[in-house]
């Protein structure tokens, strides 16, 4: 079992959902990213989605777009993100899922990325614009190396596509709570999490729900239904609003601790 699946199982054994926290690598800088990952893990994050910035993030709303722009302006590259993961591995074992878009991966080379990611201590990949049909070149090598490939299911996915995603999944499935970009206002988290929960029962594997989950209250709305809860834009905004890297780390620590209080199943 990989670290990610293990983290989900741990959370289940504690009768709670797993907390997945998104951070955009290189925002505000890569050294602070390492501190933020450690702080999030110490404050209750079970899995880190480490965003690899891309110039044209078409599935992201303004908050994550701006984070990616800041990161790229600072010179972040996929290679430097992997170096950062290596550095983090000396400090925490929290599972790290590399999260991003396909072009930087294609440009790096899929097999080479899998080799280097495994070497760095990363745990898997979630690629927003790489549906199961296009994923063989990354998923195959990743699975061979014991890294996870996390597929997405959307509210628009039909049963056939859900089955495809389920068979591509190696640890959990990411359920997108709504049609929209990251950071949008959720229309109805309660019913979205019920759908995600039904999906989880049907597929017999963990589902994490993301998009539009910002507060502890949002977390407690969805946590009873699914094995994982993803918070992204709210964390990124906290970092954006911080006056300094130290303040960003402190704010993320506080936010993640608070979000973690909503994970219980009661």
């Amino acid at each position, binding site marked *: *079992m990989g670290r990610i*699946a293990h983290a*989900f*199982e741990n959370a289940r054994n504690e009768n709670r959902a797993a907390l997945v926290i998104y951070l955009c690598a290189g925002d505000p800088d890569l050294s602070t990213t390492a501190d933020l990952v450690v702080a999030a893990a110490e404050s209750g994050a079970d899995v880190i989605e480490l965003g690899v910035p*891309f*110039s*044209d*993030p*078409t*599935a992201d*709303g303004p908050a994550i*777009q701006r984070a990616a722009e800041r990161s*790229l302006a600072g010179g972040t*590259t*996929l*290679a430097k993100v992997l170096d950062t993961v290596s550095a983090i591995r000396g400090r925490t074992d929290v599972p790290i899922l590399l999260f991003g878009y*396909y*072009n*930087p*991966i*294609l*440009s*790096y080379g899929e097999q080479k990325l899998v080799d280097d990611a495994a070497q760095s201590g990363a745990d898997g990949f979630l690629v*927003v*614009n*790489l*549906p*199961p*049909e*296009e*994923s*063989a070149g990354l*998923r195959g090598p990743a*699975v061979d190396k014991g890294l996870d490939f996390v*597929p*997405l*299911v*959307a*509210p*628009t*996915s*039909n049963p056939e*596509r859900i089955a*495809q*995603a*389920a*068979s*591509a*999944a*190696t*640890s959990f499935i990411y359920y*997108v709570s709504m*049609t*929209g*970009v990251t950071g*949008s206002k959720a229309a109805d988290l309660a019913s979205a999490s019920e759908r995600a929960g039904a999906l989880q029962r049907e597929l*017999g*594997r*963990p589902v994490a729900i993301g998009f539009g989950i910002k507060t502890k209250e949002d977390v407690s709305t969805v946590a009873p239904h699914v094995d994982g809860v993803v918070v992204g834009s709210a964390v990124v905004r906290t970092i954006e609003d911080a006056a300094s890297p130290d303040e960003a780390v402190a704010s993320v620590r506080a936010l993640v601790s608070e979000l973690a209080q909503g994970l219980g199943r009661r």
Partner: protein
Amino acid sequence: MRYVPRLMQPPEPVSGRYGPYGGRYVAETLMPALDELTHAYEESQGDPAFQAELGSLLHHYAGRETPTYFASRLSEELGSRIWLKREDLCHTGAHKVNNTIGQILLAKRMGKTRIIAETGAGQHGVATATACALMGLPCEVYMGAEDVRRQAPNVRRMELLGAEVHSVTSGSATLKDAMNEALRDWVTNVRTTHYCVGSVAGPHPYPLIVRDFQAVIGQEARAQMLEQAGRLPDAVVACVGGGSNAMGIFAGFIDDESVRLIGVEAAGEGIETGRHAAPLCEGDVGVLHGAKSYVLQTPDGQIKEAHSISAGLDYPGVGPEHAWLKDIGRATYVSVTDDAALDAFQQLCRTEGIIPALETSHAFAYLPAVAKELGSDADILVCLSGRGDKDLETVLQKLKERG
């Protein structure tokens, strides 16, 4: 044990490949909509009523067929026989309407109640707004702020036609960013909204659908050449941004091995300056806006900003079928600078009394090279993809700067 992964092979790649290019690299949310569009399109192909409605609108409303015109004075200057396929005479002033009428008919067929589009020069935006007005559907167009500025007349036209124009300020504030924003809208409103893509770019089935709707250009031109010139042309020349007018005219000649197909990209301020929009000439294989093709990118896989005097060519990607035609050698891709395009713009005004779009002017700027190579006994067909009224301000300002 609940968490044991099933290591099944993922499904076969989707159709819509041109060799290694094309495909569907989009968010899962959009995948069902692309399937729906593919099915609707396939059904419409076999539906005589749909084809009759499309044909009737193209003829009575858009003004097809467009003429192929022998440009005698330009021919005299260049030293080959030059023929112009007059897409500038289409309703709305460019070839874009061939595609938008087709796609909006498809959108109605799918029961979509709202249309969005991206636009660079504004020609596709105008053509989409026009088709929406014609068929009574609300239309919103995403346009880079930089393009809103340099193509102001088209913004006003879209607004008059009832469309809402969103000025996009992210990134380079041009066509690439407009397409990003249109995709974000679509992923949000996909259930009710059809995204009317304007070029042979984007995820499958768009490159296929847009090529097929534009293929009327090449089909007409081939028949017209046979009738008027008594032979096929030796070369067909078209400008390439995303590549829809080029793909449309190439489609008519692709099986005629004797006909050279030449696509002309924008070299902007010069290839050597790095400020250009020539992914086929200077880019690498990458994935942008849902398809694999040639892309302008950094060594780290970030998309670079394109640069061209022409808003319609100012795009760092290109349709996947062009990438394939380049690789197999069926078409040749070259580039010309902003300055060369400006010279060609003036030449066509002066010799033929036709003001071409700045996009189209790139095709004309490469004609002297083709004519020089092929000589006086050659017939060269150019896709005159659009008219240049929208560009007057840009052209006059540039000419003033040049002195």
